[in-house]
């Protein structure tokens, strides 16, 4: 008995020893430590930005980088729960562009004071700025943006199509690689697609933060295009499971002539399939009606300052630094994240890696912003669970179903 107890105790002690040999955090006296929670940007450019801004503050603050989960849903879950619990260990956070309304309405993030807000607005593109604004107030600083382009194979396609209908028809006629790669799984990516189609058709998913869009024709058109692709030869057989990375892979391995996706696919193809890389062409996001340019999707991240931070002044200063031209250039060149500052699009180094920089900037100026509402997460869930899988869309009932579900979501009613 005594022996077994001793054995058990030593086991516990060993585990403690193992546990405590990990990293420990210590705080410096005098300097304010700001906890920045951001997604784990793979190239490490976020961590470097934190170090750079810490250095340049000359002892005023130290930015401690803390990694959030991998996908946007996980990141939001972790932040939202802690903000609801008034957790003071978050000073700064990276926010997906669609969270602004929710976080602002709940009182979790601070509106930017006039002096800082002026600095942020200066030289920032209209699209990204709109994503950081809620009810006329600036609630976050746009740090990087993103948009989808139409990527095509120059060896198979002479003239890239201007509309979805044309693209689907063109792909279906191809003898090989006759596929259109797009996100169709039940997740945010499909919401992005649907929203782009609706806004390109002249409608909106929501008219105002709590009102379902009145232009039903646009909803119908968007659903029709999704359903058309799903039913055509051009659809990827696993469309209902496709996310951005699966699309990239299918295109990279030569299975598709078209892909609608973010620019991260470009450096990836360069590394993984240099032969195919030479044949990649790009064109504006396809429209819905001939002669009418599309409203392309806009993504990216904004920096927000928590309402529960003990050091708001330092936090605003740090957030401003973390999105200054030097850092944004590093995000763009190292991490492939399109900047939100207009001037950087003329930067030579950026243009070399981003030959489509001009197109990206044009699209960001006229982007189809996803609904700005405190209930965004619910609305998005209601939309993508209705239109995914795209192959199951029933064109007769889909608009009614969408309107009902979005309506329920807006009343924070209904299970999702």
């Amino acid at each position: 008995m005594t022996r077994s107890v001793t054995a058990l105790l030593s086991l516990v002690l060993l585990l403690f020893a193992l546990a405590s040999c990990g990293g420990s955090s210590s705080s410096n006296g005098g300097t304010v430590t700001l906890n920045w929670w951001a997604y784990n940007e793979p190239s490490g450019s976020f961590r470097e930005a934190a170090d750079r801004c810490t250095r340049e503050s000359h002892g005023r603050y130290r930015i401690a980088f803390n990694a959030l989960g991998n996908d946007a849903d996980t990141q939001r879950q972790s932040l939202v729960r802690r903000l609801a619990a008034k957790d003071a260990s978050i000073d700064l956070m990276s926010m997906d562009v669609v969270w602004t309304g929710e976080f602002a309405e709940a009182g979790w993030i601070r509106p930017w004071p006039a002096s800082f807000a002026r600095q942020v607005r200066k030289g920032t593109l209209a699209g990204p700025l709109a994503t950081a604004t809620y009810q006329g107030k600036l609630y976050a600083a746009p740090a990087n943006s993103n948009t989808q382009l139409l990527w095509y194979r120059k060896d198979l396609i002479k003239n890239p199509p201007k509309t979805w209908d044309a693209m689907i028809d063109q792909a279906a006629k191809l003898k090989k690689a006759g596929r259109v790669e797009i996100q169709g799984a039940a997740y945010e990516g499909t919401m992005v697609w649907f929203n782009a189609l609706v806004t390109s058709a002249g409608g909106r998913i929501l008219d105002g933060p709590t009102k379902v869009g009145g232009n039903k024709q646009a909803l119908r058109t968007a659903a029709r295009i999704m359903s058309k692709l799903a039913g055509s030869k051009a659809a990827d057989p696993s469309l209902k499971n496709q996310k951005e990375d699966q699309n990239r892979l299918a295109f990279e391995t030569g299975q598709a002539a078209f892909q609608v996706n973010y620019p991260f696919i470009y450096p990836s193809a360069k590394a993984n399939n240099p032969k195919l890389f030479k044949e990649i062409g790009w064109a504006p996001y396809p429209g819905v009606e001939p002669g009418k340019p599309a409203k392309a999707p806009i993504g990216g991240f904004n920096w927000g300052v928590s309402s529960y931070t003990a050091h708001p002044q330092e936090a605003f200063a740090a957030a401003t630094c973390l999105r200054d031209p030097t850092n944004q250039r590093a995000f763009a060149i190292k991490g492939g994240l399109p900047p939100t500052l207009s001037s950087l699009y003329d930067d030579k180094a950026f243009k070399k890696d981003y030959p489509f920089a001009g197109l990206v900037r044009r699209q960001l100026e006229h982007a189809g912003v996803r609904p700005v509402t405190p209930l965004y997460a619910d609305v998005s869930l209601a939309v993508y669970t209705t239109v995914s899988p795209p192959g199951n869309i029933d064109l007769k009932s889909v608009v009614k179903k969408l309107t009902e579900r979005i309506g329920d979501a807006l009343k924070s009613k209904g299970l999702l």
Partner: protein
Amino acid sequence: MIGTRRYAGWGAVHLIVLTSALFPVLWILSLSLKTSGDIADGRLIPRAFSLDNYFGAKGIFKQSIFTDALFNSLIIASIATVISVVLAAMAAYAIARLEFPGKRLILVAALAIAMFPPISIVGPLFNLWRDLGLFDTKAGLVIPYMTFTLPLAIYTLSAFFRDIPWELEQAAQMDGATPAQAFRKVILPLAAPGIFTTAILVFIFAWNDFVFAISLTSTGRAQTVPAALSQFTGASQFTAPVGSVAAAAVVVTIPIIIVVLFFQRRIVAGLTAGAVKG
């Protein structure tokens, strides 16, 4: 001849049981020993063995999310174990030795609470913890752990205590021992194995919790291993942290295997005591 055939038959049966019990464990061990390049190759046995997932530059012992969680798990499960075993020992002693009204009620209540779906109380606890500042604290986890550790401890301990020959205490006193001596020399040695077994069981249960951990904690301040496991981040947005998950899974499994190896007889007795006699 028949004897050897029977032995061979039983050998085969043993082999089946062992394989099905251990295969998933061995698979996760094999995964954890693969190099980062081979992790997705789908081979059962690693092409090259490596401890990088444990001790490498990006190994789990260099990731504070894991080391903090391991520390928290140990602290939280230990505290929950001590509190519930002490409270339960008092109650179980009373139930085994004393006559008083409401004796059965305690046991029935313990059983009923053991059946409780934890998800039913997570919402109110989260809401309350927000206001009390207990969200993401160790105490904020120890308290809800009482919902399952305490009934388990009461049930197991009262089954053990019922079998203790309490007359021995009186016999010892009659032989001239003081009450303190009688308790220390006679009762404690008789009760200790039961208490020890109960503590092991309670610890395993607390170590296992996921629902409370994932709902009521969020950072290294109080997050336990199961919750941390589900939040590991990969090297990039598109790579799953398979190596880290596998290595961490192995680390939290080793103590369980050791405990089971040493104390299997006791654990079995503890697990079935309450259920069968109750």
